[in-house]
């Protein structure tokens, strides 16, 4: 019998872990940095689309900068087109390379486009971004990206194998960050850097304190749950409930009926699962969920402090699985 049971608990566990991961990570790649203080930070990495966008904007910025300079040059010296094109190529080259290095150094890992799009370069090793890292990743950008691009776009003046190689080169360069665990391009790998989304700290209300302030929840002890009733769910379900409560609290009147229906379904599921005997009126659905959330959170947090962290509602099966194996 037990191989079947084991398999069942195994699939259940996998399912639960998959779901939990979806919830906590939101399907995004994350980077773990351990600062010198020793507490790991999980930071959202910048998606490749955003990075490409930032690169395009930065290229435009440097191009416009070079164009202004060349226009001034042409106006003040008014020479032939031949010379102007030479000066333009040189200026673009000489503005581009320092631009990335200086801006990332001065603005702590952000070029202008990265500032606008909320991206930032960080050092993966948990120390401050060093000048060496900034220089390396930006010089490699020159070799990785701009050099093959000029070959690829140089047109018919060269042998076809040159442009073919250049296109292949560019293709490989696109594949590297796409396949990389941390979206690193080759320059990032060599410099040991990564590009993250600048995290935005937003402090939401503490649900428990808000609920505790409401008259008639804790004071009346209207809904009371036994510890057996609180032994059904784990962290994952609690945090889903947290999300529901937060989003329904700020819903507008237009979706009111829909929200009520949603809450009703959840209440029914919970009541069934924990064998709650009392009948709950429609107007009390939200109150019930809030009370349940408070009680469940307090219970789970206490269990966790005692060394019994419950990841999700399959925690019992996991335990039996561990014992049998």
């Amino acid at each position, binding site marked *: 019998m037990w191989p079947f049971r084991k398999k069942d608990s195994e699939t259940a566990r996998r399912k639960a872990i998959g779901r939990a991961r979806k919830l906590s990570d939101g399907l995004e790649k994350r980077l773990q940095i351990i*600062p010198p203080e020793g507490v790991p930070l999980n930071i959202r990495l910048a998606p490749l689309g955003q990075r490409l966008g930032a690169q395009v904007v930065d290229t435009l910025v440097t191009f416009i900068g070079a164009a202004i300079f060349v226009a001034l040059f042409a106006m003040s010296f008014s020479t032939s087109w031949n010379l102007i094109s030479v000066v333009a190529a040189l200026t673009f080259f000489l503005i581009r390379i320092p631009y990335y290095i200086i801006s990332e150094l001065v603005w*702590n890992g952000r070029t202008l486009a990265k500032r606008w799009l909320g991206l930032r370069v960080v050092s993966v090793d948990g120390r401050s971004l060093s000048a060496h890292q900034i220089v390396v990743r930006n010089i490699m950008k020159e070799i990785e990206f701009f050099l093959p691009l000029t070959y690829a776009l140089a047109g018919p003046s060269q042998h076809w194998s040159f442009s073919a190689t250049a296109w292949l080169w560019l293709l490989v360069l696109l594949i590297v960050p796409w396949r990389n665990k941390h979206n690193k391009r080759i320059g990032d790998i060599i410099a040991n850097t990564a590009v993250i989304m600048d995290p935005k700290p*937003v402090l939401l209300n503490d649900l*428990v*304190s808000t609920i505790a302030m409401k008259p008639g929840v804790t004071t009346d002890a209207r809904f009371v749950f036994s510890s057996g009733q609180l032994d059904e769910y784990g962290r994952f379900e609690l*945090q889903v409930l947290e999300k529901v409560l937060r989003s329904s609290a700020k819903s507008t009147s237009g979706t009111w009926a829909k929200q009520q229906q949603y809450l009703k379904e959840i209440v029914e599921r919970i009541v069934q699962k924990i064998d709650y005997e009392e009948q709950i009126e429609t107007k009390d659905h939200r109150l019930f969920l809030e009370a349940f959330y408070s009680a469940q*959170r307090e219970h789970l947090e206490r269990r966790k402090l005692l060394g019994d962290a419950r990841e999700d509602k399959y925690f019992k099966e996991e335990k039996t699985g561990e014992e049998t194996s």
Partner: protein
Amino acid sequence: MVTTLADDRPEIELMRSARFRKDREGEWKRLADLVAHVEKRGLSGLSFDESLELTALYRQSVNSLSLAREISLDQALLHYLESLTTRAYLAVYAPRTTLVGLVGRFFKTGAPQAIRRSWLHILVATFLLFGGAFAAYFLTLSDPTWYYAFVPGGLSGGRGPEASEEFLRNALYGDNAGSVERLAAFSTQLFTHNTQVSIMSFTLGVMACLPSGLLTFYNGTVLGTFFAIHDAKGLAFDLFGWLSIHGVTELAALIIAAAGGFRLGAAVLFPGQRTRGAALRHAGRDATKLALVAALMLLAAGLLEGFGRQLITDLWSRIIIGWSIGGMWLAWFVLCGRKRQVKI
């Protein structure tokens, strides 16, 4: 606003994680303000007391985060603390170097020390370049058709074995590029050619040194075969002068770029106690500096070539200018950034 409400009401027994948050919320908000301030104005925008406060509050928020992960299941709170701590971490551990300091350090100590540490690789690159030059020189002297095997069509500008002495002399001393336009265009063209060669020999060094070595050797052969055809017409010394004014700088740049490539290749081949990735990163510190020095020298060579070579046509002044500039590079590499000897 929750906390203000709480002050009005009789104290309610809160659960541990809610109490935890209530006690520290003020500190977190103060830290968020400070971080926002730093991100707008920079660390120098803070007063002394404020910057002390920033680091203290940052450490407290790290502490809060690690505690919250143990005692709280409030996801919104965990996300907030994680974001706040990350922002504070980035503000506290920002790059410390200023731009002027960075450039100064590069010129004073970084670059010359990196060059001195890479002496063996530079020596190897030099041998390869001149080995190629000697081989091609003797080959072309014995059979002039070797010239076509070594020199790409675009570079020679009609100067082949069949060219007359008159033509060669004209190319060396002639005032053929009178207008500023041709000068600039020519300089840019050659400048980019050599830049590309340097970039290639630097980056290809990662592939176990071999491509860089071949490229350096090949560049030597072009040089050698050029000398051979001029020597056949008795113009070797004149070519030497013509090349000296920018070539000393330019060939040195090629050698240094190749040496940078060799550093990377050597790290891949002989990583020692490190992993290959770590060895590559370590060698990359010096190799990048070599690449930057090479880029700088190529820029100088481009300027010398664009203006010096066509404007200064006297043989001896060409030689003197070219080699004294070369001597200046050498002095920079050898003398700068030495630690003072401490006498005991």
